[in-house]
């Protein structure tokens, strides 16, 4: 999605696509350099100024806690972060899950969410297949991203609380934003036309 959107406004390079094996793809004529990284690393590249701008989900920005400028909501990649539990082990209220184990890829966001409700939890950080947690007895609940809800249903899980909505965002490094303002701002204006 990111590369397609950028292509619409002429920001592209030969051989550029998100599954590219080449990590750095350059378009010398337009003075563009694309860096392909793991999603979780995008805020890190931008915060350090190794990349001037990046496109990444709001969930990843929040989880990383990185200090980056958020310029534009690109609207795609829509999903939400929620807490789910096995259907047959549902408790009466959210507070009833205090001090239980929650499996998640987003321990920072989850901790903030529960702490704001005065709840302490035991966070179990997993890197994928979060739904497995309650099935194998690793945790009582999960906090995860949901797009359609199919995976939840297939694993007999039920959403009990909505935590946040997320979409893809255009982010920028604070120094790049100031030193390359014209170029970055033009990009924002161009992209806005396609949203």
């Amino acid at each position, binding site marked *: 999605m990111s590369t397609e959107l950028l292509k619409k406004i002429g920001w592209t390079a030969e051989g550029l696509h998100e599954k590219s094996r080449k990590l750095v793809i350059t378009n010398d004529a337009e003075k563009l350099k694309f860096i392909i990284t793991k999603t979780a690393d995008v805020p890190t590249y931008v915060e350090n*100024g*190794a990349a001037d701008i990046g496109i990444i989900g709001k969930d990843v920005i929040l989880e990383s806690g990185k*200090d980056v400028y*958020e310029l534009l909501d690109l609207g795609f990649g829509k999903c939400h972060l929620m807490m789910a539990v096995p259907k047959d082990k549902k408790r009466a209220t959210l507070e009833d899950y205090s001090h239980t184990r929650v499996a998640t890829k987003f321990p920072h966001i989850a901790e903030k969410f529960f702490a704001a409700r005065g709840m302490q939890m035991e966070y179990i950080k997993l890197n994928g297949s979060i739904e497995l947690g309650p099935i194998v007895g690793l945790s009582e609940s999960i906090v995860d991203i949901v797009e359609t809800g199919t995976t939840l249903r297939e694993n007999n899980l039920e959403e009990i609380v909505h935590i946040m909505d997320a979409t893809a*965002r255009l982010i920028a490094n604070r*120094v790049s934003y100031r*030193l390359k*303002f014209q170029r970055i701002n033009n990009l924002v204006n161009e992209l806005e036309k396609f949203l």
Partner: protein
Amino acid sequence: MSKILETPYGTRDFLPREAAAKRAIENKLAQLFSAFGYEEVVTPTMEFLETLTNAGGLEIESNLFKMFDQNNRTLALHHEMTTPIARLVMSRLKNSPLPLKLSYNTSVFRFRKNQPDRQCEFYQAGVELLGVSNAFADAEIIALAAQSLKVAGLKDFTICLGQVEFANGLMEENNLSAAAISEIKNFLERHNIVELEKFVDALELDKNAANSLKKIPKLNGGIEILETARAFVKNKKSLDALKNLEEIYKLAEIYGVADKIIFDLGIIRDFEYYTGMVFEAYAPGVGYSLAGGGRYDNMLKDFCPATGFALGIERILQACERQGILGNVQNKNIYIGYNEKNIGAAIKKASELRAEGKVVELSLTPQNFDAAKISQTEKNYDELIYLK
């Protein structure tokens, strides 16, 4: 093998070469500050907690390193120098004639995690100019900041200048609640344009007002941007802020630093005490600001207005290194080797050369010529004198 002793999280050692580079920059800055008439002060590394949290707001408290004295009062390591200097000016210097021009060079402490190049102990040099509230004082501060980066060796850098009263005036003009103002400032500080726009839309202001508020972080550019900004505001506070920036810029032109200045009316800075112009300095290749400062007229309450800035020494060193302008600042001139017979002559020779201002290392034991040659090379001395 014995266990390696580590330093605490967020602290670092400076090895001789690094310490020499740091010292060289600090000396140049001290000389420059003094040439502008600023006098150095030294304050305690620790202060009472309430001294530090008084002006900076409570937000900073969780980032302070704290401890107790023998009476169980809470102490904290200073996290910046503006607040301790304000304390000094309101107490021991309170009868000194104004304006006061003070400078400092010290390490400061902030607990922070998970951020690039944000050490818990880091070094700052800076100045505070107290007792004058005109644009002339602010221009001197900007000119001195630019000059500081120049004497540190940086050629390519930019000073980004803003005025907090512009955004304040605009928010007051629209009768926003204190809670809404603090929320908007928070978005501006983090430059979260997405959340800012959502928040402003939810306020249901009239279209022009909403657009002006959303435009704040995009008011970035040369002097012409002040004209653009004028079209968005009607209130006196914002208009005065723009006039103030114009005056500062005119003076900066005379100082010869205007070519380094760009404007950004979205700059708020992370300390709450700023009340007028604010600025940050950036260099390509370093993803965070090298220096920052501004006017803070309320911190010293009814006492006096003030303005100033701080430079991050490690960050400037980093920028110099990335721009390839960190020369060898270690000045090692002569290594003296000698044989058994010449111990006395060697000491005399070394004393003579040191009196001439040369950096001289005298071998601690007699050596033959070959051994002396090896020592000279290993220790990086320019020249070898061998007494045989």
